[in-house]
């Protein structure tokens, strides 16, 4: 069984910005271990010579010409905002800069 601890899940939940209770962390750790066990054979399926496929249908050089198209009005842009002020989205204090 894959080793996935509650601390591991707490770290993942932090990375994913989902607050979780202790009970949720425990439950998720167990489920995650189960799922990872079920899928981990994938890592042995292909040798190093097999290339990765990220797009099912290979395409390349798909571009847009540099032409200005439509914009939303500030009212449209902010229409779904949970909080707004002075035509801008308002958010609570930010702890630190990225």
């Amino acid at each position: 069984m894959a080793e996935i601890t509650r601390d591991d899940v707490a770290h993942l939940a932090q990375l994913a910005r989902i607050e979780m209770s202790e009970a949720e962390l425990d439950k998720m750790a167990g489920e995650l271990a189960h799922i990872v066990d079920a899928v981990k054979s994938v890592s042995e399926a292909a040798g190093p010579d097999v290339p990765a496929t990220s797009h099912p249908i290979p395409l390349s050089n798909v571009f847009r010409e540099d032409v200005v198209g439509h914009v939303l009005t500030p009212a449209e842009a902010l229409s779904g905002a949970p909080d707004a002020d002075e035509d801008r989205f308002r958010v609570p204090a930010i702890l630190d800069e990225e």
Partner: protein
Amino acid sequence: MAATDEILSFDEAMERFDPVLGFEVHVELNTKSKMFSSAPNVFGDDPNTNVNEVDLGMPGVLPVVNRAAVESSIKIGLALNCEIAESCRFARKNYFYPDTPKNFQTSQYDEPIAHDGWLDVELEDGTVFRVEIERAHMEEDAGKLTHMGGATGRIQGADYSLVDYNRAGVPLVEIVTKPIVGAGSRAPELARAYVSAVREIVKNLGVSDARMERGNVRCDANVSLMPKGADKFGTRSETKNVNSLRSVEHAVRFEIQRHAAVLASGGTVTQETRHWHEDTRTTTAGRPKSDADDYRYFPEPDLVPVVPSREWVEELRATLPEPPAERRKRLKEAWGYADAEFRDVVNAGVVEAIEETVAAGASPQAARKWWMGEIVGRAKTADVDPAELGVTPAAIVELNGLVEGGKLNNKMAGQVLDGVIAGEGTPTQVMEARGLVLVSDDRPLLEAIDAALAAQPDVADKIRGGKVQAVGAIVGGVMKATRGQADAGRVKELILERLGVSA
């Protein structure tokens, strides 16, 4: 605010340590539309007016790559002597931050569009330092946060923040150097010169407005120290968003001194980001490197690879302008300026203007005289770029011709120039409209001279007595009486003649 850091004197730091530098310079491209959406790429508009659903990361939206942004990126790569990738991809850099609408930045990771280049950077004294370029990659800018409440307008202590996504999705090219070793005590100077050179290149390419005060060019500076003679790099700090040439120089100097103090006292440098404070010319600690820096990069599934054909790359290469350093060298020789003269011209930002003026028919000396002697000062007063004053090379050639042809003296030419700047017409039109005509008939001059001599008999005596340099006072009186419309040289001749003194 963190406690003030100890610093060592720069000289002592240099005696004991060798600095290693590294730069990440973000260049905003001046495309018409954004990197992945068709919203306009415009600076300074009202908040959230240059956004559409793609820029806001609305549910269901998809990005589409701006061809012009790719071309600009390739041009930058070529100008930095990079290899252009045969094939490259976009990747998602995942992190949550409210200025990042999708909570990931679409960037490039292991496959940048340009890699392995170099840039020769010239220091003040002409020393050339080669900086190796690791990569230049394409990505998108974030929105703009304004921190409200709190005392400082800074993020610390703010009550809340407001987000304007106009800048979100503006195309960026991030240029990353390899570690720069061997700069020694010239490291701060090199830092400034490097960023200046990058700025000049992208401006010269026409791919960026390159205005640092608008954030078109932004620099993160990495500094570490190693004991003199060592070859193992020390722990580095990354000072973020050092956004003027002067700040880059100061920030690198400060970090060298700070690291030196830490190391000299037996401490260890923390790997962290630092914030630059222009007011105190110091840095303070930001976020230490941590697990939170796990960006979980993976290939952007909504975009397909960019595969620049060699033909396309060569087509773009053919459009590149002459590199700024080479161009400067060529012009300096062609114009025959002394080192100091040329440096002043460069620093005043009128190389191009002089080049155009020479092309329009002025001699290099005359062009320099007009731009450096007259126009730069007026531009400074008006707080605009010299080229923005509205004086065309043709106007300068014309004005210069009027002076050399004896129709205007320098003082009157200055008034004509003012008239041209004020939009009153061509130099000849201004001259005529303002009635600025050099008095060349001697009779009215002689009358004025006699009057001036009569008004200052003691001066006249001095001149008669051989103190020829005193003639200036009489000349001044004549010029005043003729409202400056006399040829001062001729006035002087006539005064001496009148007084029977030879020059």
